[in-house]
């Protein structure tokens, strides 16, 4: 065992028993600890922390080091008895590529944690007032970096500072960029006046409600932070969702004792200056339509399940590929050759593999009745495990458990072409009579299908990878297209619940078809309309005009239809 490991054990023993060795003073700690770590080189000098703790770093022989966190041991009367090791941290090797050191970052983090903020916001205001000799100061308006603060000078003019957060609760002011303006209106103009009317309304209403004045703020793309200074002392921070087109909405509000505490909270809670918050982000790109459509489809499925359970029931059309299962198994029985099943190359046990196994259970049931041998070859061990159980259960439920051959369900390999070679080899060697390929298939699909064709097997295939569907169509006898695969269990089982869900999906399909037709009509009508720029919202109009400055459209006022007739190509 390495010495450092032994050392680690020793530390562990000390930590676990809770006995703390007390050193009289720091030199004694160094000497004794060095004896403990005999043969080690000397450690770095201790680094003082501001909370009174100190460290000592011991470098170990190879690429590791040990950090002792030291503290004072106090006796009953508060008298110091000596130094104790509060905690020992072990740092492993650095990152070989980037050279990042966990040790270095730990030290940096600790130093940052304990360092007082260099320029707290209240200190800035006190210092800057003295520096400028200003009569008074006031908050102007929030900005993306922080806020603008205006100082009234003794001569009546104003100096506008742009105050931004430093990310540690302090502020950064670039005084060289400060502007001197004659009056407060000019100060607002210098600050850019970024607030919209609805934001200003909110500030006015809220100031009246709290009996406070606005003293701090940050304005970002989707959100606005406002710090109100209350008359009785203390601050209230409002966190607003600020959508320029819809107005503002308060998400939360919090009280603070001081402005420094408020700014620190904003920093510590990751409210970063460059953060572009997107609320309801999953609804932002598609609005509520996406979830609405999904709920509509779900409702349609559930409603039809209910309908199918009723006395009337529902009927579904025939699916050729599934009707052929019994025939394929029958042919295998006649020729005494096995039935091959491949549940696809799913990377994990997913719904597709489960669906394939559900169909295969039906195939196995038929095979069990006719005592036809089966081969179920798996690409994924999880699918293999489930398949084994399913096949065993089917034989059990058919009352012929002794017919179940554990070797008939196999895990082959999880390498794509090794799997393809193994399946192709089995097809050729055992001359399978029927091949069922259902699930996720990729480039190997044709290898399976063509090999099965070579030995004259009946093939039924279904894949959710539509790039492989043409290959199966070209090479197989029966192919389940698209969602027919998912309908297979419903079709085979003929249970009302499953049939109902199929009808529900068909309703959804009809809904989509109707929508496509509707959209084609609406879009075509829209294309025949003149572009009336005055009716466009200002932002869209600006975009439109900018676009046509770059790409001039000489016929923009013409009807779309006229344009069409002028075009030589369609």
């Amino acid at each position, binding site marked *: 065992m390495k010495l450092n490991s032994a050392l680690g054990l020793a530390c562990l023993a000390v930590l676990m028993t809770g006995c703390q060795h007390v050193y009289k003073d720091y030199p004694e700690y160094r000497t004794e600890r060095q004896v403990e770590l005999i043969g080690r080189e000397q450690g770095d000098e201790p680094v003082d922390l501001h909370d009174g703790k100190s460290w000592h770093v011991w470098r170990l022989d190879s690429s590791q080091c040990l950090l002792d966190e030291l503290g004072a041991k106090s006796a009953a009367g508060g008298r110091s008895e000596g130094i104790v090791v509060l905690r020992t941290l072990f740092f492993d*090797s650095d990152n070989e590529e980037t050279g990042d050191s966990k040790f270095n970052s730990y030290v940096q983090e600790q130093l940052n944690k304990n360092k007082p903020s260099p320029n707290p916001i209240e200190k800035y205001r006190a210092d800057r007032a003295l520096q400028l000799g200003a009569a008074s100061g006031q908050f102007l308006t929030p900005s993306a970096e922080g806020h603008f603060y205006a100082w009234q000078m003794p001569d009546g003019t104003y100096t506008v500072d742009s105050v931004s957060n430093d990310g540690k609760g302090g502020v950064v002011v670039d005084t060289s960029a400060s502007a001197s303006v004659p009056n407060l209106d000019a100060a607002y103009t210098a600050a850019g006046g970024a607030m919209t009317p609805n934001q200003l309304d909110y500030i006015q209403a809220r100031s009246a409600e709290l009996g406070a004045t606005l003293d701090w703020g940050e304005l970002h793309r989707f959100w606005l932070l406002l710090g109100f200074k209350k008359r009785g002392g203390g601050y209230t921070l409002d966190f607003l969702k600020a959508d320029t087109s819809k107005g503002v909405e308060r998400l939360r509000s919090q009280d603070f004792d001081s402005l420094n505490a408020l700014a620190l909270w904003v920093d510590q809670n990751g409210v970063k200056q460059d953060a572009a918050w997107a609320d309801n982000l999953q609804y932002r790109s598609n609005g509520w339509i996406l979830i609405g459509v999904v709920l509509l489809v779900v409702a349609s499925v559930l409603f039809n399940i209910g309908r199918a359970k009723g006395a009337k029931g529902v009927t579904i059309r025939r699916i050729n590929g599934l009707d052929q299962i019994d025939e394929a198994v029958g042919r295998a029985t006649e020729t005494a050759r096995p039935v091959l099943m491949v549940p696809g190359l799913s990377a994990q046990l997913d719904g597709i593999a489960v669906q394939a196994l559900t169909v295969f259970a039906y195939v196995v049931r038929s095979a069990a009745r006719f005592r036809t041998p089966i081969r179920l070859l798996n690409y994924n061990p999880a699918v293999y495990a489930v398949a084994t159980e399913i096949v065993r259960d089917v034989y059990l439920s058919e009352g012929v458990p002794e017919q179940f051959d554990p070797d008939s369900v*196999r895990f082959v390999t999880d390498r794509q072409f090794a799997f393809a070679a193994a399946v192709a080899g089995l097809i050729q060697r055992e001359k399978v009579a029927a091949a069922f390929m259902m699930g996720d298939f990729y480039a190997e699909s044709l290898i399976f299908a063509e090999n099965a064709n070579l030995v004259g097997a009946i093939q039924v295939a279904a894949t959710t990878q539509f790039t492989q569907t043409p290959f199966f169509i070209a090479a197989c006898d029966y192919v389940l*297209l698209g969602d027919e695969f998912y309908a297979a269990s419903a079709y085979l089982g003929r249970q009302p619940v499953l049939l109902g869900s199929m009808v529900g999906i068909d309703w959804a399909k009809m809904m989509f078809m109707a929508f496509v037709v509707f959209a084609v009509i609406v879009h075509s009508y829209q294309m025949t309309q003149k572009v009336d720029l005055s009716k466009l919202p200002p932002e869209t109009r600006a975009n439109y005009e900018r676009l046509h400055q770059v790409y001039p459209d000489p016929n923009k006022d013409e009807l779309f239809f006229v344009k069409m007739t002028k075009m030589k*190509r369609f």
Partner: protein
Amino acid sequence: MLNYLAQNEPPETNFWSIERTTDLLYLQKLGLWILLAMVVAGLIFFLLARIPSNFRRPVVVGITFLSGLVYVLQWILPKSKAADGSTVALIGGWNFSEAIPVVSGVSQILSGMLLAMGVYSIFRLHFGRVFKGHKDAFFSIVLLVSLFVMVVFGFMDNAAQEKQKDDMNLIARVKSFRTRAVGGNTPEFRELAMQSAKLVQWKRLDLFQRDLEEKIRKGEKDPSVFEDEMRAERAKAEQAVRDEQARIAAEYQQNQTSDETLATAREGAQIMRERSVGAQLFNLVFFDMYQPLETGMFSLIAFFILSAAFRAFRIRSIEATILMATALVVLLSFIPLALALTSGIDPNSFAGNFRLDSIGNWLLGTLNTSAIRGIDLGLGLGVLAMALRILLGLERGVAVD
């Protein structure tokens, strides 16, 4: 409880992650947790196996529903995203995005355990064949031997990788200490650098020899100069090794490390990995044997496409004839010689619509794409219905019964 599981604001140490302090302490804590997890898992398996068969279905459906619900809620509950990539939940502080890695981690662990079952299946089948004297027993032996060889060589290669990682860590640590102006040169590093100095020079010598042989083969140099030039280069390399080793020794004495030494050590560690027996054996079986076989298997597809196309395009019915004609046009639209037939037509004229490439693109972009989108839409709806049936326990397939 949900908040706890969702880990809305994960503390540094929590149920899922323990504090990493000293390596040993960490390992021991981790060991205890793993042991505890195994005991709990064993208990759960025991209880599950004892469930009466008529209660099994509710248990399976219940677990499936709850597991699926995590994903559904994760998708449906409104959440915000800050520019730094962190996600913030807006309702009740339930941020299921944080819980997803935990849920998928559990399923990964289960899959890992199932791999052992897969390997057991291979062993049972092929050892069975060997012991029973099956007619294909020879191939089973080949498979089993390959399996063991791959595992052993894989571990050997991994060991070489680990060694390189250790060396690189050592180099990084020495570099890191150097920047803190406390030296940091250690006996291990000196040893690595000394060895690396030799390896780097020998590698250069090898490259020089290869280059020289290439030039001789091309006739750029006379074969008679080979011996002399090699001798001179070897002497140069030996001198370079001596110089570098002397520098490394001196640096060690002064407890310093230069950039050159660090670079040499880095290159040396890489060469050691490349030349390790493990890496070479693994490359031999994987890259030199397995991959060509895999490529060969893949190339078979070209022939299968031909034979499948031949059968599919036989003219037997109206549909097959249309299919054949369409396929022919698309095929021709990809052949430059065929394209030359209609290349004289001005693409911007009305007749340009009847160029072969225009027709081919229209068939692929309009007819084919719309058909595929239809299938895709059907697939999407099918998945939705299946997921709904499984989630609500309506599916009475074998997987849930």
